[in-house]
């Protein structure tokens, strides 16, 4: 029996039932649209982002099939340019960052001992906005007006003169949707982490995963505005003739690049930092010991988050910016390797001094040490201005970015799914299928992307729909395509594993892994209110630490959605708060906002007339319900 189960005082079944009633989502169709429980929203979010991952992967497969042979005519130039634009945009905006926020949304309240996130309705709104934005993009693609200027949409190519029609406007507005969703998520996560931790969970005792999410969320606040401003200026240039990016009227093509990459570089760290938290969770559990060097690990994450904002010009080394300035960014790009190195060495030290259980989650995490490390090293190569002038915009960069993004994020993400699937569903994923999934993915990945380093050195530029036979690039391209097919098969195995395990997987119990963090101290899946009784924390890895008194909180209502608010640094008791009930208004407000955003692709007046429904929906969302207020007025305690 794990330590977790033995510690649990229980509510009476009657009270547990009432608590469940209070926190769960309402039934029925209207109920489905009104749901705001963070776990419900998170599962939807995870499924949606995974859906986009599959779509993005299919796009990649199409790209690889076209490039497998020189001079192939599988897709024409126009479709190819849409394919790689959609692939990049999907993976970067619709998958990589949102999936991390989705997982965080599920796990953070559980890990910190909270019943909910801080702003559950805004959380739901963020999901709907995200879904509707992604749908808009894909509908456009399927009707033949998919964007085709790359996921980075450099001007002047993306300006109206060189990209007529609405393709780029759709892309730019997709940015607005997805960045709005991410920004709201970041506010929700920061507030939840800082104000809703269980009593006794000082910052010093917070799980490393939660630190990673906190750092990431702060980064989101400062990075995403840059791309929102850039894309808004692009929309206005295209729609109402502003001149931000037009060199003939005082604008500048590089303004776009500066704004985009000021967002774009931190963006990849938004993708990279949460998995660092996953790795810490998984390695600790499967090494049977806490991670070596907790303070160093925390400082490393914070340092990485700060430094990430100082690198963006390394995407612009081929431009005519001053050389001295570029060298500064070389130094910064090299320096950011130091905090990552600290983390890598601490993890290796943990493995070295632990007792290992080589289960599938750990396998996926271990892949990080091969794949991300290789990708990070090619990153150091690209950090040098001179080397970059040969490697920039070639397949070498394609190799690099996939090594860091897949090694640094996707592999740990699969590890996260294998690790936390039992918590989400109450069942274990199949271990044997998991191993097949892993090895196919690992081998397929390397087969696909390692040859691309060579292709880049051999002169193959990026974003080419085909290449001449004489260049001699055919056999490596073919190899890469074979690898891509292997990756597709491995993902298929994952889907099979998930579908099978939902029905027939081994029952998980509260804590199948004997882990140390609070999410394992409640049922799998957790009850609607997360914990029957909110725990009190006395150490890091609370389920591993020796039992201390008091163990749990008492007095939280099971009639209202009552949560505990604690102080920022030391999680001392502060006050209680009643969170709002389920509501359909976040969904309706998201629909209204969608009308505004999509309308403004076609006319600037949409901002005016569509503002009214948005205002109405958000007002109804906010407006309190008389009967609920009157019922609990008597319980009000003034500060």
């Amino acid at each position: 029996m794990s330590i977790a189960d033995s510690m649990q005082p229980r509510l009476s079944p009657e009270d547990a039932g009432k608590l469940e009633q209070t926190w769960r989502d309402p039934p029925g169709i209207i109920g489905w649209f009104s749901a705001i429980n963070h776990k419900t929203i998170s599962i939807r979010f995870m499924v949606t982002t995974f859906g986009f991952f599959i779509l993005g992967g299919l796009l990649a497969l199409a790209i690889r099939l076209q490039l497998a042979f020189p001079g192939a005519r599988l897709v024409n130039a126009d479709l190819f340019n849409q394919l790689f634009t959609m692939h990049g945009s999907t993976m970067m905006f619709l998958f990589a960052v949102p999936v991390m926020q989705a997982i965080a949304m599920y796990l953070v309240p559980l890990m910190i001992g909270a019943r909910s996130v801080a702003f559950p309705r805004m959380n739901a709104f963020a999901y709907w906005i995200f879904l509707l934005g992604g749908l808009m993009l894909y509908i456009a693609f399927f009707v033949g007006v998919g964007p085709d200027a790359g996921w980075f949409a450099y001007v002047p190519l993306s300006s109206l003169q060189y990209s007529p029609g609405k393709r780029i406007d759709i892309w730019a507005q997709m940015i607005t949707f997805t960045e709005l969703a991410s920004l709201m998520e970041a506010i929700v996560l920061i507030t939840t982490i800082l104000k809703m931790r269980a009593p006794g969970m000082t910052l010093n005792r917070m799980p490393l995963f939660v630190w990673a999410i906190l750092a990431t969320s702060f980064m989101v606040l400062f990075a995403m505005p840059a791309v929102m401003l850039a894309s808004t200026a692009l929309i206005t240039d295209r729609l109402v003739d502003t001149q931000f990016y037009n060199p003939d009227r005082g604008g500048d093509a590089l303004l776009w690049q500066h704004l985009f990459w000021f967002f774009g570089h931190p963006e990849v760290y938004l993708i990279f930092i949460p998995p660092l938290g996953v790795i810490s969770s998984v390695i600790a559990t499967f090494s049977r010991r806490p991670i070596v060097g907790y303070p160093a690990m925390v400082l490393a994450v914070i340092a990485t988050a700060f430094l990430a904002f100082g690198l963006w010009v390394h995407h612009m080394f081929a431009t005519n910016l001053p050389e001295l300035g570029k060298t500064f960014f070389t130094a910064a790009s090299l320096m950011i390797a130091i905090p990552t190195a600290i983390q890598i060495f601490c993890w290796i030290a943990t493995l070295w001094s632990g007792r290992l259980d080589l289960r599938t989650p750990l396998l996926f995490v271990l892949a990080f040490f091969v794949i991300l490390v290789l990708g990070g090293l090619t990153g150091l190569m690209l950090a040098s201005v001179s080397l970059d002038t040969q490697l920039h915009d070639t397949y070498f960069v394609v190799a690099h970015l996939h090594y860091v993004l897949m090694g640094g994020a996707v592999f740990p993400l699969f590890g996260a799914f294998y690790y936390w699937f039992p918590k989400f569903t109450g069942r274990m994923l199949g271990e044997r299928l998991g191993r097949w999934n892993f090895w196919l993915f690992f081998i397929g990945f390397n087969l696909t992307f390692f040859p691309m380093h060579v292709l880049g050195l051999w002169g193959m530029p990026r974003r080419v729909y085909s290449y001449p036979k004489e260049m001699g690039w055919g056999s490596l391209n073919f190899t890469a395509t074979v690898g891509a097919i292997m990756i597709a098969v491995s993902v298929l195995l994952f889907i099979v594993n998930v579908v099978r395990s939902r029905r027939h997987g081994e029952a998980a119990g509260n804590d199948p892994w004997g882990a140390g963090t609070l999410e394992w101290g409640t049922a799998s899946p957790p009850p609607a209110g997360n914990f029957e009784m909110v725990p009190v924390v006395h150490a890091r890895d609370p389920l591993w630490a020796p039992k201390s008194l008091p163990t749990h909180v008492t007095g939280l209502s099971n009639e209202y959605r009552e949560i505990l608010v604690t102080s920022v640094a030391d999680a001392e008791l502060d006050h209680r708060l009643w969170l709002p009930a389920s509501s359909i208004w976040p969904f309706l407000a998201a629909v209204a906002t969608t009308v505004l955003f999509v309308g403004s692709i076609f006319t600037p007046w949409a901002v005016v007339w569509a503002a009214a429904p948005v205002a109405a929906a958000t007002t109804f969302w906010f407006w309190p319900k008389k009967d609920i207020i009157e019922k609990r007025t008597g319980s009000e305690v003034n500060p």
Partner: protein
Amino acid sequence: MRRHAVLFPILGTAGVTETARAAPLQDALHAYGIQAWHIGRLWNFTLALCALVFVAIVAACLIALWRAPRADAKSTPPDMTSLIRPERGIHRTVAWAVGAATLGLLALLAADVFTTRALGRMPLENAVNIELTGHQYWWEARYLDPDFQRQFSTANELHIPVGRPVIVTLKSKDVIHTLWVPNLHGKRDMIPGRTTTMQLRADQPGTYRGQCAEFCGLQHAMMALLVEAEPDAQYEAWAERQRQAAPAPASDAVRRGRALFLEKSCARCHTINGTGATATQGPDLTHLAGRKTIAAGMLPNDAGHLAAWIQDPQSLKPGVYMPANRMRPDELHDLVAYLETLK
């Protein structure tokens, strides 16, 4: 021919470089010019250092996995001794490793700075000055000279003298393009509204292929450039020929062909010196027949391909700005005959 070649020290590339040698030269691993050579040296150093680090980290990981005892997660209580006793030894090891990593990073920084300085020190006396303007999807080249009469224009194929510096001024007419001739130098962006320069030098004679390396639209993939490096005397002879106007037609067919060039829409976009056609929307055709390729490196320059291109460029390279030109087969034949005299 390989004195300045940069070796690619990874196993199994010997057979692979054979294939590369038969293909047109477009790779960063074989430097035929001083700038590419400097970068190649930096590449070798960086590759060696990074490979070492990679092996060390993977080895550390594998050894950790091999030597650690196995346990079943659920039933094995966690080891909490690190809470009681600080793990000084482990912390020290991590600190040393981080220190070593920092030193490695400083070495890379130093190597980069040295290389940047070396690249900036190429002697520039007696340079050839070329102004290269990027277009969707071709390269416009103007060879500059203090004496205006000695300037000339060409497109998609550059000749440069071996051993003499070449200063390339980079501009763009429409969107961002990038000049990249990897055997000679790294790449540089051509940004509308800005002017950049690049200094390079070929140190071996040969034909070096380059490609646009910034996504510039529909036919970005088919925007290649050929750089012919030849001994100075041969280069000067070529340049002298480029300065001449097109020769007068010597036969009736050729004369008819020239008339067609002027009557049809060709002269609205193309220049041929000596005919009165001075438009610059499309490439300068005065010496078209001397080039190895047409359509920016996409097609061989022979009568068949030329005819097909003139008739319907969109079918070969959809999205180019050159429209279709319908004409009778005999007209086409004459026009091509004329173009073939433009050596």
